[in-house]
């Protein structure tokens, strides 16, 4: 399991690797937290259960699209609710655990405008998952 930043002139490109789909979500949570507040500890105080796939009325989404929408939700919750995710569980849906941004305890590293579909890569192999994401900052 890992995530690392890749070169991109204007924005922020990152690569995530994980052995399974759940661990990939863990990496995304860690990456977004790091981008927002650096190494500041984020406590588990509240939970959010966002509708990643558009709800029961929407057709099932492939994993690549579900994962993209999950990262997009992390960005949305951080901006709209100042919610910082520290952990995630996949239990049929998605449950995020974390706390609200507190300028007294959390470093303000940078805001994230969006995760973009430009250069989005989602690869699944016998070794697990490899994903490339580009964030607009």
């Amino acid at each position, binding site marked *: 399991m890992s995530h690392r930043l890749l070169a991109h002139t204007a924005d922020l490109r990152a690569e995530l690797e994980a052995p399974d789909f759940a661990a990939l979500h863990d990496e995304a949570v860690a990456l977004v937290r790091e981008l927002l507040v650096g190494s500041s500890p984020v406590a588990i105080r509240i939970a959010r259960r966002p509708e990643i796939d558009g709800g029961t009325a929407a057709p099932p989404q492939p994993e690549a699209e579900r994962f993209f929408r999950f990262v997009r939700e992390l960005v949305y919750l951080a*901006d709209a609710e100042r919610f910082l995710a520290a952990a995630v569980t996949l239990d049929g849906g998605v449950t995020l655990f974390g706390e609200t941004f507190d300028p007294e305890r959390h470093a303000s590293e940078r805001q994230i405008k969006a995760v973009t*579909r430009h250069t989005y890569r989602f690869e699944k192999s016998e070794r697990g998952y490899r994903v490339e994401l580009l964030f*607009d900052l």
Partner: protein
Amino acid sequence: MATKLELERIDDWRWRLPRAGAMRTDGLVFASAAQVRDLEGEQALLQVANVACLPGIVGPSIAMPDLHWGYGFPIGGVAAFDPRDGVISPGGVGYDINCGVRLLEVPLGVSDLRPRRVEIAEELFRCVPSGVGSSRSDLRLTDRELDRVFERGAARAVDLGFGREEDLEAIEAGGQLPGAEPKRVSKRARERGRDQLGTLGSGNHFVEVQWVDEVYDATLAARLGLAVGGVTVLIHTGSRGLGHQVCDDHLDAMLAAAARYDIRLPDPQLCCAPLGSPEAAAYWGAMGSAANFAFANRQLITHHVRRAFGRLFGAAVEAGVTIVYDVAHNIAKLEEHDIDGRRRRLCVHRKGATRAFPPGHPELAPRFRETGQPVLVPGDMGRYSFVLVGSAGAAAETFASCCHGAGRRLSRHAAKKAARPRNLPRELAEQGIVVRAASRATVDEEMPEAYKDVAGVVDVVDRAGLAVKVARLRPLAVVKG
């Protein structure tokens, strides 16, 4: 686009990217030979070519000298589309709808301000929220009030006491784009923007107190209220989370629309819909709303900048702060342009590019009819920014568009790594520049060396005849997110 991309030199400042593969038109790049060398290995040229593949494009896919790799459209890209068979693309506007810059003139001399630059930096940092989670505790808009802001933009902010009537004539489109439809703005976008009006954000956004250190055209400078030794404030921000969400909301719809209308996309971030389609109408109404939110955002920040100067320098200075101009650099607009001798209405996308109407343009407020529209080009926080005015060359060649900034040369990651062993705020302080920021990461990522020298960028547009250099502005105090 598997074809190898090679530029053909037209003259010292113009390069053609010949039509190839699925391109429907040429690319036209404004750059010096050195800037072209810098593009080698960059994806930006590929993005210029990708834009040229979109249906209904009129004229070339244009790139300004601050061209660099974006997502979908390149940053520094301009493209116009015919409303009959062309498209609108959220990727041609960007997430930060109507990100733009506003320049204020302050009735002080640099000698008045320099001894108090730390105080003004602190005061501005305190009254303009920035960084992660930045919001205003003193202003949370109801849906009804948001609707008014979406419809009236900066004018609504003035109605609420955040400015003066005369401010509006110094803002592109009077600070109020037509076609905004509040009903097109989602609940999620509203939630993101509800308490963000009057906030800066982070990344490359800033409020910068500057002084005019050089004037290139004294007559034009005087007409714009600029003189050597004068003090200015440059504000760079946009539509905040509200605009980002509007873009996100409509990208999904546009992806589906592109498939439905059989539009082949070289990059999914270029997803688009035919102008005149329901999807385009929905985006147009929401984009206009977000653009007006951005105009109102810069208007509120202007109010707080005025108050900050008032607290430090008195009521007369506060009353004397005027807007030089406010211009968008991420926008799509319906404009009329002369194409092959015929007046045509076109949808012009500017992604990291500035409108640059020439003297005499009927859409300009009377006070700019003789000068041409001011073009504001920020540089980096260690060097300088420039004021230019649009000229006839831009109207003839670039759908009246010009460059918008320096353009990055280092990735944020590389900049942060380079800055790690240094103390940038101290280095800048030694140059007489105070930096106040919510985050060290932002200061590091925005280090001066992360950007190209903006002087080279404005020299190209000046010499190519797209705009005329008027004045250079040096930073004194910088507030970053």
